[in-house]
């Protein structure tokens, strides 16, 4: 990647990137062990700043926190095998092992703030196309913020005829359901894909986004790809504003 993106490591370590930059940098982290290592060390440094601002919590907080965890099962550990496919190109020299552990680290780093693993498999084509849309000169952004801080952003490039949905901290869809994505053409909603599980996603929509009037997100039964929306509407983004 270029040197510009490396320079974002400090801002990333202190959460000073906007959602778009953060998504880009996290993709960069997956392939840059140097930045992954640097981010880890800069986060250590940043956490020291909290030493200067102690505050005594209310006694009630302790009760609430301890009551809150009692019914929640800790997630299983990330098992090392998941990183193995990254290592099959080069023999496992010690140095390469380190790279692999950094990659696993990157996945873990992305996962922590959100309570779920967001590392999903996307083909290289999808990744670069997503980048192209986000970085397009004519990219338009439409963001909605939900109570609790979750956000969904639609980025559309008319020239590329594509749109990307970027979610951040989205609560999981109800059990047995998934978020479905739609491109609105006049009054019709055309299926544009299903959002992978996890709070943070970037999804390239299928369909012609240039002629579309907007994007919709609905809740549908998991495992189905209905031809038209049948469930609750989570968000609507109009391109014509």
């Amino acid at each position: 990647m270029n040197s510009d993106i490396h320079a974002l490591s400090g801002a990333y370590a202190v959460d000073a990137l906007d959602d778009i930059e953060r998504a880009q940098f996290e993709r960069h982290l997956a392939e840059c062990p140097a930045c992954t290592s640097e981010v880890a060390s800069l986060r250590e440094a940043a956490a020291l700043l909290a030493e200067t601002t102690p505050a005594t919590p209310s006694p009630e907080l302790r009760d609430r926190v301890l009551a809150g965890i009692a019914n929640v099962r800790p997630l299983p550990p990330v098992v090392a095998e998941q990183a193995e496919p990254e290592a099959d190109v080069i023999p496992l020299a010690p140095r390469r092992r380190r790279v692999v552990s950094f990659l696993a680290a990157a996945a873990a780093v992305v996962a922590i703030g959100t309570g779920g693993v967001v590392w999903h498999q996307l083909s290289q084509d999808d990744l670069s196309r997503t980048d192209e849309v986000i970085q397009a000169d004519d990219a338009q952004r439409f963001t909605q913020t939900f109570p609790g801080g979750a956000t969904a952003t639609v980025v559309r490039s008319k020239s590329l005829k594509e749109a990307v949905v970027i979610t951040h901290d989205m609560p999981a869809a109800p059990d047995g359901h998934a978020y479905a994505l739609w491109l609105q053409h006049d009054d019709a909603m055309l299926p544009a894909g299903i959002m992978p599980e996890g709070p943070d996603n970037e999804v390239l929509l299928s369909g012609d986004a240039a002629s579309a009037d907007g994007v919709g997100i609905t809740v549908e039964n998991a495992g189905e790809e209905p031809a038209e929306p049948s469930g609750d509407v989570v968000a609507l983004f109009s391109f014509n504003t």
Partner: protein
Amino acid sequence: MVTDTNTRETDDVDRLRPVADGAPFEEGAPAAPEQNQPHPAQPDLGELLRACGRGDETAFARLYDATSTRVVGLALRVVRDRAQAEEVAQEAFLDIWKNSGRFDQGLGSPLGWMLTIVHRKAVDRVRSAEAATRRDTTYHQQNQPVDHDSTAEAATASLEARRVRQALGDLTQVQREALELAYFGGYTHTEVATMLQLPVGTAKTRIRDGLIRLRDTMGVGS
């Protein structure tokens, strides 16, 4: 578009007010003496986290007791409102519990890992509250100058806090200001650049340089 009207007003007010020394603590005990410094009495947080990963609630209670003043202090410093800070802390502790089995000591310290989670949640909180207000007022109208020296002194300084402040003193003024606005203010590097009247794109460099110097002075990280 959904907005959170409960938090809007308090956030507005808090964001508008320049930070006075110690201001974030006004509703709480003034920087209570820490019983949980990383010194002899400190339990092994890594060990506690591993026990949490196995579902050990007693270990989690000990982890809470050892870290809650830092967790709440950081949340309070960023969101400024005590009730919201405790909500952020509660969410963060729940996340820490859920992900405790995934903590990898090879990647950093237990406390660093925990505070990273807390910080992200606190920043998310101020940004989402702010997004609701930005539609009504322009960014510049909302943001008054901030007291850049806001971390200079607190009433009581732990040993570690004194070391950190000394290390911060080694940063250039602009590095320190940029770092504090980003970390404690929850501002993006682009916003920081505007607030400090830096050329676009240079605040991120100042933040990174400041963190590197702080890291190297304190001897943390890799």
